[in-house]
């Protein structure tokens, strides 16, 4: 493989590229799902190909193919495209700091290879979960999914790097839908929208205890049908870590993507309110809010050895003591800001160019035990598991709905509410964060459906956090 990729690089340089890299990716996926007592689908897929990136006269070109026999045409095409890009060039051209070549092989640590576990055993698991979900007549849809992804990636660059990465992801989850008179409610576990996913092996599926949790989740789902509507008004809320993970994703993770800040996503995903003049000065949250990106944390869905610039994964501060510190970046955008790359240039497939993506954007744990946090809250809501999400194109005005809410009254959890939602403006919201639970309540959540870019790229990213409390939040807008 090294020889093949180096030939491609050499040819690109020969045709005039001042920089070139090539990525080969072989992806193997296995997905199993059950629905209402029957197998919905068992599917095995494989996909492979390579993408060539060239920089000529300060402008990018990219082409890709699944067919190695066409490599010379693909390089020529990338070069031609780069020359076309130069018809509307960046002032001063695209540039980045040189880096020393890296030769390495990274492997995702795991305990149990999910592809080595028999399909019979995996099928038996999802059918048992499905059965455990269907204990109530109101449950009209029971759904269970597990899935696994294995990537074999090679990266070679004209700077002399050659990096191999063997990445492994495992995910799964259940959801049920209850239908009553004019009402439909849904509950999910461990997270909503299909699955919780992490890097690692089948040990993550075992740790979920899907069978053990299914009856409780189904019961909550049925109870929601007759639960009262969530009240509205300004109030105190505590977010469980699954909902808080998405709050971090939308209001922090996307907002600190440096390509957005530079307008590179303006026509599609949008820009960001966190402009470069705010670095080191802007109060993003309260003193206890510490956010960071970390592509190295064990099991994170955004964990890897090297990004698609060939830069080693690292940890950097985003918000420290409530003050905004820095961005997710790649070599190109970091160069423009005069800072080192945070190793966040990621492509979701071989036929996509790498762009700035989240790694694991995490909220550092605080000091509170969860029970103490509830006991300390006189009047509020505990909001659990995301149901809907929306945020404006500068990442300021957001609105989230959750599957489940509990009243908190005089320091105790009370009745269940349905259709909870809350809204706010990002920095105001985070400035009203007055308590974060400690490391015992901290966990990593995978977001395997993060969309960005044209052509679209759906990235797998992660968020670590513990439940946290926010004051003066507008609740019940929908």
């Amino acid at each position, binding site marked *: 493989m090294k020889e093949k990729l180096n030939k491609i690089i050499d040819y690109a340089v020969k045709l005039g590229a001042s920089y070139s890299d090539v990525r080969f990716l072989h992806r193997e996926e296995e997905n199993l799902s059950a629905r209402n007592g029957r197998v919905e689908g*068992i599917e095995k897929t*494989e996909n492979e190909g390579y993408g060539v990136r060239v920089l000529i006269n300060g402008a990018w070109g990219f*082409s890709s193919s699944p067919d190695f026999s066409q490599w010379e045409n693909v390089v020529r095409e990338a070069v031609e495209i780069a020359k*076309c890009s130069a018809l509307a060039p960046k002032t001063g051209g695209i540039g980045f700091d040189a880096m020393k070549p890296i030769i390495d092989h990274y492997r995702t640590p795991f305990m149990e290879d999910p592809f080595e576990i028999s399909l019979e055993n995996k099928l038996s698991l999802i059918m048992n979960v499905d059965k455990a979900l269907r204990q109530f007549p109101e449950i009209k849809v029971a759904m269970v999914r597990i899935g696994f992804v294995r990537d074999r990636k090679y990266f070679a660059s004209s700077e002399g790097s050659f990096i191999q990465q063997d990445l492994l992801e495992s995910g799964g989850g259940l959801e049920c839908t209850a239908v009553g008179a004019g009402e439909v409610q849904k509950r999910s576990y461990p997270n909503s929208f299909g699955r919780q996913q992490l890097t690692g092996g089948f040990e993550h599926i075992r740790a979920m205890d899907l069978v053990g949790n299914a009856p409780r989740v189904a019961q909550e789902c049925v109870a929601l049908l007759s639960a009262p509507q969530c009240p509205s008004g300004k109030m105190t809320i505590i977010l469980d870590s699954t909902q808080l993970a998405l709050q971090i994703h939308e209001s922090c993770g996307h907002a600190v993507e440096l390509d957005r800040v530079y307008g*590179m996503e303006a026509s599609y995903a949008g820009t960001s309110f966190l402009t470069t003049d705010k670095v080191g000065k802007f109060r993003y949250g309260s003193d206890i809010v510490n956010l960071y990106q970390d592509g190295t944390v064990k099991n994170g869905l955004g964990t890897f050895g090297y990004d698609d610039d060939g830069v080693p994964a690292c940890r950097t501060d985003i918000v420290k003591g409530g003050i905004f510190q820095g961005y997710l970046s790649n070599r190109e955008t970091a160069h423009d800001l005069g800072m080192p790359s945070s190793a966040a240039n990621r492509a979701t497939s071989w036929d996509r160019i790498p762009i700035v993506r989240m790694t694991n954007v995490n909220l550092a744990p605080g000091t509170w035990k969860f029970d103490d946090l509830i006991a300390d809250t006189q009047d509020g809501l505990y909001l659990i598991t995301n149901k809907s999400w929306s945020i404006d194109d500068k990442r300021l005005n957001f609105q989230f709905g959750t599957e489940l809410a509990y009243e908190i009254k005089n320091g105790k959890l009370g009745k269940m509410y349905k259709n909870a939602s809350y809204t706010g403006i990002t920095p105001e919201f985070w400035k009203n964060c007055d308590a974060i639970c400690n490391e015992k309540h901290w966990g990593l959540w995978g977001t395997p459906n993060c969309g960005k870019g044209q052509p679209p790229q759906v990235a797998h990213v992660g968020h670590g956090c513990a439940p946290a409390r926010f004051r003066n939040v507008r609740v019940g807008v929908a």
Partner: protein
Amino acid sequence: MLGKDKCEKILKTVIELTGKADEAEVSIFSGEAGLTRFASNYIHQNVRERNGQVRLRVIIGKRIGHSSTNKTDPESLKNLVDRAFQIAKLSEEDPNFPGLPQAAPVQQFNAFRPSTERYSPQKRAEAVASLIRLAKEKGLTASGAFKTGLREFAIANSKGVFLYHPVTVADFSTVIMSEDSSGYAGASSIDVHDLDLAALAKEAVDKAQKSRHPVELAPGDYPVVLEEYAVGTLVGFLGFLGFGSRAFHEGRSFLSEKINQQVAHPMVSIWDDGLDPRGLPQPFDFEGSPKTRVELIKDGIAKSAVWDSYSAGLARVPNTGHGLPSPNGMGAIPLNTFMAPGNIPKVQLAKGIKKGVWVTRFHYTNPVHPKKTLITGMTRDGTFIIEDGEITRGIKNLRFTNSILGALEKVEALSTETKTFIGSFESTCVPSARISSMTFSGVTEF
């Protein structure tokens, strides 16, 4: 481009390899596209992609196995078949599986435009450079994307289905920005020469200039004019949330209790038609069944869901040809939706509104309560206040939280003009609309 002959060769090879199966279906999704993306007045991403996928469904008794690959050499195709057999043998019987669709006559439709397929990166870059020059002259910043390409879909099954359909697609969109405003314009077609890039540039530039120095409008209920971009979002979500076979069958859709009831203003008619050339024509679905036109809402009255072979078998209704690639957790959904236009030119839609909001498009829209068709999202790239029937100035963007059917009940007028939006495999063709009241639940800072 794979072409019909190569697709047929692959399909035949795989069907032959599945000879021991009771039934088998093999499909090919192939595509090539170039996309030139620009931002901050320069081309920052410029790419070419090509890929294809062979998908296989094997049935043994009523046990089903799926596999797919993007490799078409003989060994990879044999592995594809072996994997699907292995899975089918392990699967449990699905007593409701009705069998694969039989071959049926399919209307041929030429949706392939050679000049669009051949449209070069040079031409895309020249068009983008021209737009950037215009933006710079006006002191504005241009961003956007210009894509041209082709898709091929081919399908065969052991019951005699053998179909191939290539389609070209061109899509252009731009956001033009000033320091405190932005304007959007976009269009898509199967023929790149249908796109009036100069007009789109002017539309976006005008919006960016007219929405300078936006003022804040308090959240509340206001009459609105929604441009086609915004109406397209509502109609697209309505099709997905309301008219899918599975949501209908399981009682998760509003339609489950509203068939033949008035759900929208009588001037609202929405239908699905894969054969209408104004959309993204696709004469057969992803099971090879012919597409038929389905009335979703007729004169404001809810009429029907759409069906694939499986859901039609369960509901004992005719298959309307709306199957998605198997395995499919959603059931059938409408992919080629149309909304009937009205009789008022778009420029006159604001007439009669004393104080209201003009919305160019919505951003990051998502369902809040699917059965109630309640959704939320932000306005973006050209939000204006209407005063005494005229657009007077730009306003800061608003969050709306409103049911789609609630909005369609309050339609007061529809434009004579329509726009078509083409996505990966779906299209929506809609007019602009004047709606007597929509709920804006929040405002942002720009």
